[in-house]
């Protein structure tokens, strides 16, 4: 650039907008959903991401590729916006904020910056590598509604290689270490059973059914989708609203199948799903303490990974939803009970060393007749 111009250039009009940081007021747009995509290397995570981006859907989707080490942080993210079939790659430097006394983790702040930079982002995919356990990520992304954040955790999707699943689950059967596969399945809202073509080529459909049963034994709340090269219908994996307290319909349908949700045969991993039911109304304070003793104090020695439920609270005409990821939990009134509904308490636990009898009895202790 030459500085020695003798002739001045043409002056430009000053526009009303300032050329630096302008943030969109977040309350004019609904929060952007964040989908966490996890799974073993080679299972098909990248294939899934590419499929989502390439499908003609008219949505602006950003993909963040992240290497998670011991710390959850984002320094650089590649934004891949699939717009009308075109892929635009852009390396974005994100401000690595310090965690000191801030409520929002630096990852969340980075994602919010992303939403505020771009016009109308419809969804964010967070593709993880090297992350064995998605729980810490879920905790970080599952924000209090009060924060009115520009981003919202939508779901955790685990991609599984059907060909290798058995092997991966067997890998540690004889050793003491805990396979990542169990954790990734336990915390998933959606499981994509990928590469089914490679399995069916060798055998009949039985293997797939067996695999699905193994997955359901660990986590019967997750929806399982079979796929080849991750060609999945977008409506099944985006906008799941799996952490939305007010999104009850999905939860209720799930809880309709009461009996079938409880794992009957204990999986070798010890991770299973358990559904308990209580017809009497329960006291809100007591059930909070009950849950805190289980989640925070590890009372009864149980290791709970996830918990979802519908509660019937005494002195309330509202159906309450319960959601928990590790120690973080939330009980929120969701909607009025309908006149024809049977107002039952139904709670599903996913975890290790779950004791059905103890859970039934201790929940019963929270009913109002029992003082």
């Amino acid at each position, binding site marked *: *650039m030459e*500085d020695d*111009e003798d*002739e*001045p*250039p*043409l*002056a*430009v*009009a*000053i526009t*009303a907008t*300032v*050329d*630096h*940081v*302008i*943030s969109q007021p977040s309350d004019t747009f609904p929060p952007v959903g964040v989908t966490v995509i996890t799974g073993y290397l080679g299972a098909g995570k990248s294939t899934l991401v590419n499929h989502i981006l390439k499908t003609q859907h008219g949505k602006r989707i950003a993909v963040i590729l992240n290497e998670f080490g*011991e*710390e959850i942080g984002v320094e650089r993210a590649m934004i891949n916006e699939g717009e009308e079939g075109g892929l635009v790659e852009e390396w974005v430097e994100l*401000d690595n904020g*310090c*965690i*000191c*006394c*801030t*409520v*929002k983790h630096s990852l969340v702040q980075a994602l919010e910056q992303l939403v505020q930079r771009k016009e109308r982002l419809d969804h964010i995919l967070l593709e993880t590598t090297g992350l064995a356990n998605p729980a810490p990520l879920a905790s970080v992304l*599952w924000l*209090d*509604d*009060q*924060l009115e954040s520009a981003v919202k955790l939508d779901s955790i999707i685990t991609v599984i290689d059907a060909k290798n699943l058995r092997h991966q689950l067997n890998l540690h059967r004889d050793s003491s270490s805990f396979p990542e596969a169990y954790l990734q399945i336990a915390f998933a809202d959606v499981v994509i059973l990928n590469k089914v073509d490679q399995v069916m080529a060798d055998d009949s459909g039985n293997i797939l059914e067996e695999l699905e049963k193994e997955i359901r034994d660990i986590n019967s709340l997750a929806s399982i989708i079979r796929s080849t090269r991750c060609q999945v219908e977008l409506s099944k994996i985006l906008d799941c609203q799996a952490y939305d307290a007010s999104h009850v319909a999905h939860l209720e349908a799930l809880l309709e199948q009461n009996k079938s949700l409880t794992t009957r045969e204990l999986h070798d991993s010890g991770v299973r799903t358990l559904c308990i039911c209580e017809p009497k109304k329960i006291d809100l304070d007591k059930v909070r303490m009950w849950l*805190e003793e289980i989640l*925070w104090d590890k009372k009864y020695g149980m290791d709970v990974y996830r918990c979802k439920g519908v509660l019937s609270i005494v002195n309330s005409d509202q159906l309450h939803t319960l959601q928990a990821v590790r*120690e*973080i*939990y*939330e009980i929120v009134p969701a909607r009025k009970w309908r006149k024809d509904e049977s107002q039952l308490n139904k709670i599903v636990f996913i975890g290790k060393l779950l004791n059905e009898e103890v859970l039934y009895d201790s929940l019963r202790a929270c009913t109002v007749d029992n003082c």
Partner: protein
Amino acid sequence: MAGGGADAVETAALCCAKCGKPAHLQCPKCVELKLPREGAAFCTQDCFKASWGSHKSIHLKAKLLELSPGNEQDATSPASSWLYCLKKGQARTLKMPNFDWTGTLRPYPISKKREVPAHIEQPDWASDGIPKVEPNSDLQHTVEIKTPDQIERMRETCRIAREVLDAAARVIRPGITTDEIDAVVHEATVSAGGYPSPLNYHFFPKSCCTSVNEVICHGIPDARKLEDGDIVNVDVTVYHKGVHGDLNETFFVGNVDEASQRLVQCTYECLEKAISIVKPGVRFREVGEVINRHALMSGFSVVKSYCGHGIGELFHCAPNIPHYARNKAVGIMKAGQTFTIEPMINAGVWRDRMWPDGWTAVTADGKCSAQFEHTLLVTETGVEVLTARLPTSPNVFPWIHS
């Protein structure tokens, strides 16, 4: 600084650099280089042409700054004094950065980095700005129960921190700069044998935070003089005998209007009420409920982005204690835990914005914000306020009858 109406865009106040008439044009090179419009705006092409000879030297100066890595002056270069802070403290710049400022306050240049004598024990970020032990510690996930020895050290350190804050309180007056307040805090801390924890913490450039009017927290001490009517929070943390003590108070500068007085008093009461519920068995979540109730009742709002925190051998650790209601904070108070409660209460909306320096948090609507903080110890029966006022503490709060 930039005049104009409270919420008017900066352009409304711009005058032609040549003749002083209202200006609506600016130099395209300045736009390209993202230089400020003040002094670089013109009313006509003719005035611009006439000024060109002297005006283009601004581009040269900016170019010289561009030549150094990262586009701004390196913060460690010897000439880095009285420059504006950028990149969380990692860089300095000659010009005030562009921003859609939410209120009337602006950043001012900051002074050179202050030294701490070598014999004083320093936390691991003092040398390079990066905490190493803290982010990887287990104490980010579990709340520590302090040993009697740790508790005794915290009592001592918190007392020093209290005395340092009191020293700052005594110099608050119209005309003093926040940089001079920082000097007082720095000197008092070092004289007591302590290290001012904020100094170089994630590159923070000064020894305390000074937050004026619409600044919510983490304001950086600079060359701005306090004005009659301002409110200013001074946040002090001292590191001594291996532990940190953290407290802050909001002070009146000269004659403060009634609305701001009410805000500050309400904030004080929010902290007081929160402390009154602290005892073993109480959920951390409850703190936010108490604060929120009192603030909202008085017509104010609660800042949600910053929270109270565990403290001890680490500056910030578990638990996280939000100040707003309906939060999902995990855990129950137990005897032996030490943490801070530090509500930030706003006169207007609760939302916050960040200045270009990467630290200063301001209210989104430019209205005032106040804060108070204590370091607390949960005892078997209740709470001990480790940073409590002393009989010698200056009597600057009219509602405290001492």
